[in-house]
């Protein structure tokens, strides 16, 4: 499944200073090809993140202070970690922790 993933507000600094990424999530091979945000976060950490993973994730979710939008809607309206990703979704991570 293909997704667009974007980082801004300083979060891009953790991802090689690249703001927009086109990513292809692998099939899980067990007949269950459903990806949720809960699965996406560690996948991004392990496959896309370049430095300081503790500034991206805390426990099994994003570090508090990072805002997440899926297709331009606040993920808090979409069930957060339980949201089931659809092909060509756009997921945006915005850090609020950098500079005022």
């Amino acid at each position, binding site marked *: 499944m293909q997704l667009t993933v974007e980082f*801004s*507000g*300083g979060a891009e*600094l953790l991802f090689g200073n690249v703001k927009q990424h086109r990513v292809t999530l692998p099939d899980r091979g067990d007949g269950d090809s459903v990806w949720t945000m809960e699965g996406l976060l560690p996948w991004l950490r392990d496959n896309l993140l370049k430095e300081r993973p503790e500034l991206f994730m805390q426990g099994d979710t994003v*570090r*508090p*202070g990072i*805002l997440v*939008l899926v297709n*331009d*809607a*606040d993920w*808090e*309206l*979409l069930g957060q970690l339980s949201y089931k990703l659809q092909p060509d979704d756009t997921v*945006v991570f*915005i*850090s*609020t*922790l*950098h*500079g*005022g």
Partner: protein
Amino acid sequence: MAPKCKTGCGKNAILKRPKTGDALCRECFFWAFETEVHNTVTAARLFRRGQYVAVAASGGKDSTVLAHVMKELNQRYDYGLRLVLLSIDEGITGYRDDSLETVKRNRDQYGIPLTVLSYEDLYGWTMDDIVKQVGLRNNCTFCGVFRRQALDRGAAQLGVDQIVTGHNADDIAETVVMNVLRGDIARLQRCTAISTGTEGSIPRSKPFKYTYEKEIVMYAYFKKLDYFSTECIYSPNAYRGYARAYLKDLEAIRATSIIDIIHSGESLAVRDAARLPTQGTCSRCQYISSQPVCKACVLLQGLNQGRPRLGIGKSSKVQERARETEGESGDRSEVDSATVTVGAG
């Protein structure tokens, strides 16, 4: 799928408001955000018609959104204000250069004139030069102390009636927590005030006092406002301390924590008998200071005498050292009171 907008306008919601939990669509969110700032401004009677107001502009998210919203509200509600952007150039190559470019774009986009003042103009030193002297351990102390005065000095040069800053609810809650941890009663009393600065100094106010950081960032995102975000090259990771992380953890559990902490700070009462430091003026530069010589002048003295650690540490020790060594060498300018009129008008 996202739920419908709480107002019943029929559109899909795009944001869950941290303060109320309401789900709002883009247009209803913009309206709610701007109207709340307007209500804060009018309830506190922050402005008077005809005032000349400087927006402290760093190119970051808070001040960029503030400049945008001030312009918007000034027109919509006819505040009758004359606005100017005021930026401070600390002289940090590769950091401030980029954010100043952002401020210049804001100037053009919003049609608000811009004044930039540099540390070099004001103090004779750029942050790059200071770091060469003091290294990377205490440079943030210098930067913070100089910035605080720089805004006032800039505002005095411009002759503005007041300064508005982009401090938001999260910033203020953070300051409350820090002052509790430090036991700093005097600051704890002052830090929740929406407007500060009395006799002699130019008032500063915070129209975003009750505005959540999340909403500021979402507003900038949905309005596609152009802001600059990076770490200061001299303090990577130092941008937020434990207090901020603690607050963000609290907010994740219960979003109203931020406002609750501000309200706690506001309702704090100090016994009449408690002794609070009195505010006087610095004997060298006339800037308001609770000590005989203000922190900026002590730091400058240290730099100019090649003893950069002079101003670092407990204030009683610092004052003592500053007195002992005063006049040993008076070369590069002390904060030059001749060029500045803070406190005079």
